[in-house]
């Protein structure tokens, strides 16, 4: 286990070290101490290493992640795992607004609640939230899956494209062009896999599925150039 003291090494020192790890590195386990809410911790990683951050983080932790497994042993500030490409990011506490925004791939697991705009413009990422999500979650979501084990706030899935939304609790309101959809066998098996990967002990049958009604401007071929 490599331990990096963020206060001693500085943010650039930490990120440079983590970003320099190669595919075949022997140093696969890292621990970051003294996070103290700092911004941009462990961003732009591209190696199959495991990083555990002790304490809560500020803006953009684990942004642009590829391959790495990053765990925040605390809560995460705005934009955690923004634009993730692959890998796994686990938040033991809560996540602030726009968690997982624009994520292309990989899995984001939030064990507490996520606040507003969770999964905004998601493009293939899988997000599993053990608690609730705030308003405008999955706004303009294009692809991927958002699983909410608690409740969803206002305007869930506003202007959604092809992402799938699964919610176990209540939905305060659905956004424009977002509707409840039938839960077919393939969705139940997909959800079972997501729940297992997210470490959630829940039955897929307890969830409802939401997605696009495909009625907005972009879905009408007559509007194409």
């Amino acid at each position, binding site marked *: 286990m490599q331990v990096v003291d963020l206060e001693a090494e500085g943010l650039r020192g930490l990120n440079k070290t983590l970003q320099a790890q190669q595919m075949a590195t022997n140093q696969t386990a890292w621990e970051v101490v003294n996070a103290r809410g700092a911004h941009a911790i462990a961003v732009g990683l591209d190696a199959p290493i495991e990083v555990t951050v002790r304490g809560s983080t500020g803006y953009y932790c684990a942004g642009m992640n590829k391959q790495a497994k990053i765990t925040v042993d605390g*809560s995460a500030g705005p934009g955690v795992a*923004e634009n993730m490409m692959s890998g796994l990011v686990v938040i033991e506490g809560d996540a602030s607004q726009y968690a997982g925004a*624009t994520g292309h791939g990989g899995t984001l697991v939030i064990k507490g609640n996520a*606040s507003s*705009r969770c999964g905004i413009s998601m493009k293939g990422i899988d997000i599993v939230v053990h608690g609730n999500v705030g308003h405008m979650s999955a706004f303009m979501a294009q692809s991927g899956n958002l699983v909410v084990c608690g409740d969803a706030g206002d305007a869930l899935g506003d202007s959604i494209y092809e992402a799938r939304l699964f919610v176990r609790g209540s939905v305060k309101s659905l956004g424009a062009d977002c509707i409840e959809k039938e839960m077919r066998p393939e969705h139940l098996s997909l959800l079972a896999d997501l729940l297992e990967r997210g470490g959630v002990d829940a039955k897929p049958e307890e969830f409802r599925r939401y997605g696009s009604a495909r009625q907005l401007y972009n879905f009408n071929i007559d509007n194409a150039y």
Partner: protein
Amino acid sequence: MLGLPWDVFSGVEMCGIVGLFLKDQALEPELGAMLGDMLITMTDRGPDSAGIAVYGKQDAAKLTLQSADPAQDFAGLAEALGSKLGKTPALVVRDTHAVLTVPKSDLSEARDHVRELRPNIRIMSRGERIEIYKEVGLPSEVASRFDLASMSGTHGIGHTRMATESAVTTMGAHPFSTGADQCLVHNGSLSNHNQLRRKLRREGMEFETQNDTEVAAAYLSWRMDQGASLGDALEQGLHDLDGFYTFLVGTKDGFGVLRDPIACKPAVLAETDQYVAFGSEYRALVSLPGIEAAKVWEPEPATVYFWSH
């Protein structure tokens, strides 16, 4: 970081807010030092100017005065006021500011005399407990100029400003006070402040600047003058104030927090048996005693939070 559309609105930058409400009296001598640490941590969010409102314990009446030429304006002021009021008031100078303490019954008379004797002096606050200090410059410089670390009190709020809606001046710095023992700091921008300022002027409210936050402060003072509680005034503000905001409002007894319904502007609260603390970011709170075990959460949008002694 990636320049995505919501980053623009998310308050990655554009002002930092801190606040501290003490439950444990033993911490009161440390209020200024704790608040100062929190304020300086928020320098990245607002390097243009900084200000603090500190609520002290003594029940006198106080005016916080500010002058661009303190050597000239504060010299002999106490004596000149003394000859008008019949008793020389206490005047404690801190850099460009000075706190004038008078008997409660003399407060409005003293204010009128200050305006007459020293027309260039600005009155930053009035009330039984509030003192406001604000200046242009980095938060660390502002904190040391006023010797914030030496101040004690029951609660306080602070602000680091990145100017968007009006010029970088002392008067454009936060907090804004428009009523006795009331003040407001703000992260965000209001879009209907000009219209609301005209309306409030007709209602008799006075304005010193073109700043949007001053309008929000005046709005809340106006509501409270009409008999609303702070909580009610904030609730009504949800209908009448248009724009992005996280507000932290100080009163004689405590402070309140309100975020607009869209809640783009960040806010973190922490509570322990000893205090309630507010920060634009968790970073502002990390040096507080017992923060590891504190209850830490983000205030819900369009929801009023309030603590009082």
